[in-house]
């Protein structure tokens, strides 16, 4: 589905944000990238989105190089980023081409999937933060993307709403098996939502470890092995040798 080959990104001021990134994401797979802020994980996601281009290396989507944003890639940002002048339904249909019944069908189905079909006529100002983020997810789902990119999508919500939305997203994934690339600094979120976790370290941004999550899909937080995995990841993030114990 998605292949990154030896990606590097150096800005004009000489700052190297990413170096030697290789990544492979298969269809239906969920990969999380965790790292502290400034490690380049958001930069990496923008490269995959086609919003910026790498200084060297290649991004391949379904075998063809990705050089500009592609309609088959959906993006959910940290903030909802809804157009305040559009009603919920038009925000959801924002990137849909074409008009008429196909369009309204796609919008209705996307709203149904996030449980907001009753709010189609609302303006963004009338929504709570959690609802607005669900509209943003519906907007990313509406064009039926092959790959969905999530940039800390639930970090602006309170703990209860965050868990609720994570569970909601899991259900969605279970029924649709969307290929997902999630960027987060929240280790728990990565374990709950991903099959595979890549740990990134900064200066320059690189992938330093890969961890497979062998936990059941449901109720991962209470699964055996969750806290071990969490501890391991946190230690890795702090640059400690994973083997060392105190």
């Amino acid at each position, binding site marked *: 589905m998605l292949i990154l080959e030896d990606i590097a990104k150096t800005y004009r001021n000489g700052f190297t944000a990413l170096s030697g990134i290789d990544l492979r994401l298969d269809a239906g797979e969920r990969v999380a990238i965790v790292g502290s802020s400034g490690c380049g994980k958001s930069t990496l996601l923008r490269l995959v989105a086609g*919003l910026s281009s790498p200084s060297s290396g290649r991004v391949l989507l379904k075998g063809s190089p990705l050089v500009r*944003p*592609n309609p088959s890639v959906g993006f959910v*940002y940290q903030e909802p980023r809804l*157009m305040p*002048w*559009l009603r919920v339904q038009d925000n959801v249909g*924002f*990137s849909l081409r074409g008009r008429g019944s196909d369009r309204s069908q796609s919008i209705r189905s996307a709203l149904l999937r996030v449980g907001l079909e009753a709010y189609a006529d609302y303006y*963004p100002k009338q929504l709570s933060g959690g609802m607005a983020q669900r509209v943003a997810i519906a907007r990313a789902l509406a064009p039926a993307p092959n790959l969905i990119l999530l940039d800390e999508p639930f970090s602006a919500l309170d703990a209860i709403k965050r868990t609720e939305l994570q569970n909601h997203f899991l259900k969605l994934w279970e029924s649709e098996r969307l290929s997902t690339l999630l960027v987060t600094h929240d280790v728990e979120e990565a374990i709950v939502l991903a099959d595979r976790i890549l740990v990134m370290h900064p200066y320059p941004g690189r992938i330093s470890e890969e961890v497979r999550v062998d936990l059941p899909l449901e109720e991962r937080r209470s699964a055996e092995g969750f806290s071990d995995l969490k501890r391991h990841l946190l230690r890795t993030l702090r640059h400690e040798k994973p083997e060392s114990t105190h």
Partner: protein
Amino acid sequence: MNRALTTLRLQAAQLLSRSRGLLLPFLILLVWQLIQAHQLLPTNLLPTPSQVLQTIASLASSGELLDHVAITSWRVVQGFLLGGLTATALGCIAGVSPTARHLLDPLLQSLRNIPSLAWVPLFILWLGIYEPSKVALIAVGAFFPIYLSLSEALLNVDRKLVEVGRMAGFRRPELVLRILIPAALPEYITGLRGSLGLAWMFVVAAEVMGASKGLGFLLIDGQTTGRASLILASILMFAVLGKLSDTLLWLLSHRLLLWQDSHSLQGA
């Protein structure tokens, strides 16, 4: 029954709160009338409000008032449209294309610093003393608020929203139409209202410099014939027309901005 009463009470309260703006002007008129009833100041210099109203009434009954109001309003409309349309076009271009902005903006910003009345002799020389020079002067006045607010608003549109458009695969024209322009609309409308106000200011300047009709002509007429009531009548008419046209513009535009999350629209 009870509900009808509540509705009635609500309507009365609404009416009251809407008419609050009339309270102060009314008080001022009352005090003014009372002072001049005792002729504290010579009435040929400061006529009573009732004298001013009488002047307006007699102008109205002879049909003269309508003529003056019509010609002045028509000048404002023409100047506002000419200046406004040019400003909208140039503001759009300068707000959307960096190249155009680098070319246009320095020139326009320096033109803006010329006192607009300095154009008067040139416009009269070029366009004559009749309508074109007046319309041109009003257009110059109406141009800048719209140009500035639109180009600035377009430049300041949230990068994050634009990115959503880029992710959707939008090219430049689509980004402009579907994100930049709607996002800039509130500030653009504020610019329009500012421009309309300036158009009314400049029509006075244009008519004072030479006209045989219009409210500005009444000002000069009142001055040369020593009738303060005529001057005040004309000033009052400017106040009424300016407020009316602004309200009209607001009525036309506020439906476009209902989406705004402003505290003054709570519950609207």
